[in-house]
């Protein structure tokens, strides 16, 4: 990197400053890109996809389990024609809850957490209610999300 020392210092300096300017520009670019990405508005593509479930699969009094954005979810028909959908992941440690037809409740097999059909915690260690997913009736399909 050392320029020939027989050159006058000011000549050497010009060369070195051009080099430094180049390196500085590279570094500024390297710092500017993350900054721009950090501040860029959040993209809303892909992740917002809805899931369709046939209404016939969700008979009254039964629970239908399906995958929603990579996680287990469950749809219920509480009253005829009235549907709800919930995340089926227990809020305690992430086990998948089971539907108890006899009692009309969700039961987590890991530590006995119990949830109402609306997702509220009835008993056991879960800290929060099950996440509620928006449901729209669309002909003979349910659109979730």
């Amino acid at each position, binding site marked *: 990197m050392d320029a020939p020392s027989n050159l006058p210092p000011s000549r050497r300096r010009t060369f070195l400053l051009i080099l430094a300017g180049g390196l500085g520009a590279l570094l500024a670019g390297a710092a500017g890109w*993350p*900054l721009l*990405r*950090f*501040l*860029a508005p959040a993209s809303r593509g892909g992740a917002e996809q809805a899931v369709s479930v046939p209404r016939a699969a969700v008979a009254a009094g039964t629970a239908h389990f399906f995958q929603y954005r990579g996680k287990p979810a469950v749809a219920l028909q509480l009253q005829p024609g009235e549907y709800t959908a919930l995340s089926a992941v227990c809020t305690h440690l992430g086990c998948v809850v089971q539907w108890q037809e006899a009692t009309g409740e969700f039961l987590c097999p890991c530590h006995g957490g119990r949830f109402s059909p609306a997702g509220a915690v009835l008993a056991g260690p879960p800290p929060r209610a099950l996440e509620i997913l928006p449901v729209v009736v669309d002909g003979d399909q349910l659109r979730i999300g």
Partner: protein
Amino acid sequence: MRVLTLIVDFVDRRLGVRELFDKELRGYLLPRNVNVWYTLGAVLLALFGLQILTGILLLIHYVPHADQAFASVQRITNEVPFGWLVRLLHAVGANVIVIALLLHMLSVLFMASYKGRREFTWLSGFGLFNLAMALCLTGYLLPWSQLSFWATTVATEAPGAIPVVGDLAREFLRGGATVGGQTLGRFFALHVVALPLALLGLIGLHLFCVKRRGISPPPFGSDYRSQELPAAFVHEEHRGGIPFFPNYVVKDAAVICFFLALLLGIVFFAPNLFFPPAAFEPADPFVTPPRIKPEWYFLWAYQTLKIFPSELIGLGVQGAFMTLLALLPFLDRGPERRPAKRPIFVTVFFLGLLVFVAISVWGHYS
């Protein structure tokens, strides 16, 4: 280029910036034997600037609420593009600042630069050091991790040992009987607004003191002169010295580059250097994690409290030591600055440094 000249002309005609530049930067002469330790001030300015920038960026996504703080930091590190980088730069940057501050202070001590009516420079610098520590302490709580919560519980417990007003002082710090949402609120306000404002003000005062009194030359080489000061104020000039701009600024910039390289090196290749496992668990007021330790720069204080039979004595020793350090220029008044001619001071200096390191290491492994 032409447009730039026009703009500068416009400003110059109104504010005389060219004259200011020539006098304060080009004409600001440093001693000819100035050494690399004199760049640490510029390094600290640059690092504080980086903290302010990354701090503002973090504020965009951080939520100062006990229920959401941890999740918001998780979101920053995992979902926001380059949020992990901004967060690590801020957290690791704080540690690099402490390193630079210690080096700056140690070099000033070793070269006795606080001498020659520079008490205000020293006191403002000492104040800056404590403000930086307070910024570290308050910033530590904000991620609301197990580490944050319990390190802050331990740290705010200390004033409780003060007789009579101890309990009151502790509750006042915490905003309640224990660390909680109230503590997060006040630490957030301190960390984000109050302390940075104070820091900026004190940095201004510190720089003013340095420039007004004149920079203290290194006490080495044949140029060294023991000064007899007249009764009135004197500005110490260095005729025939090195112009600050551009001659010395490039060295400042070089050392800043090396410090930034150190910072990035840690961020990319040893990101866990300053993060124990408890930093990645959300705060739980009912579970004390095992082996909770303060940050490395508070280990000495942590260990001193354990050495002494009562916390009050430990606190007293710490307070006495820090007070002694703060008042050093008032106590050490002789004109001699050459380390070779100050054997007692230099011995105490190195012994003190050794004790500091030894106690910190002891605290780490105890």
